[in-house]
């Protein structure tokens, strides 16, 4: 099975920490855990309301967050939602958003594992 978080990306984030400064990897993962769940929630609400413009916006923003921590699978699902949203195509969005939620749960577990190390 592919890594939930790309180890190369995690390593490069870790290396961004200047000597004597707080750990950048830790900071980025903490922000991710704070910022992503509310936006995921917003995405689901907008999907239920059929607001495709806001669904696309939320997915685009989530895609950026996922890409930055090397969450490849999550990034890929977000990209599909982003593309469909941009095309105004609501079909097949519900299963994609369900998959997105499942993948986020995996990412969250992996982040907690990394942060407790």
């Amino acid at each position: 099975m592919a890594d939930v978080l790309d180890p190369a990306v995690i390593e490069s984030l870790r290396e961004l920490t200047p000597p004597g400064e707080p750990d950048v990897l830790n900071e980025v993962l903490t922000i991710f855990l704070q910022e992503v769940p509310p936006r995921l929630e917003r995405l689901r609400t907008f999907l239920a309301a059929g607001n495709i413009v806001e669904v696309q916006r939320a997915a685009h923003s989530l895609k950026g967050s996922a890409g930055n921590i090397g969450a490849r699978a999550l990034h890929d699902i977000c990209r599909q939602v982003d593309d469909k949203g941009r095309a105004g195509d609501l079909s097949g969005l519900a299963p994609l958003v369900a998959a997105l939620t499942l993948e986020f749960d995996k990412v969250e577990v992996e982040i907690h594992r990394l942060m407790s190390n």
Partner: protein
Amino acid sequence: MLPLQVLVADDEPVSRTVVAAMLKKAGYSVIFANDGEEAWKKLDCDDPPALALLDWEMPGLQGPEVVQRIRARSGDTPPTYVILLTARDSSADIVQGLKAGANDYVTKPANEDELIARVNVGARVVQLQTALADRVRSLEEALANVKALQTLLPMCAYCKSIRNDQNYWEKVETYFTQHSNVSFTHSYCPNCYERYVRPELEALEGAKAAQDRHRQGR
């Protein structure tokens, strides 16, 4: 030299944090904007950051709109070097971003080496622009001096005094010392030596000889 300041404008906090960490590691100082409006506010001042990394898709003003505003601004404000940062990567998007006035374009998630290499190019351009602006300023100052001497000067045909703007007659030396970087040192030419200096010396010699004769005759 002070580290160059870079504005990072992105509504997405994870990306903002990562990009800022990359820039700080490379020695830049970083300020943030959480959306396009805030970015524009921080760029629309007398002393804007030298470089800006603008996200394309932000609530309110989008990246390309911010660039258009920067480029439309008139006046002496130094131009900010702008790199658009975005997940959009089709060539139509790249063309649109550059047409809006961006200097460069980096796709997200940013690769550290590429991002820093492009920011360094921007820093070089900014430094060249600053050096060029300084050079132009000193040349303009020099030109202003030259202009001050490019006028028609009224000069007395006999004593060679010059009439200044306040209608006073000044010595040539005084006039030029005030209106240029010229200063004078006094000497005499061979003609004037023959005409003035030698007769004066001879007169002195004559006076001395007469004095001596007078003393001996007593």
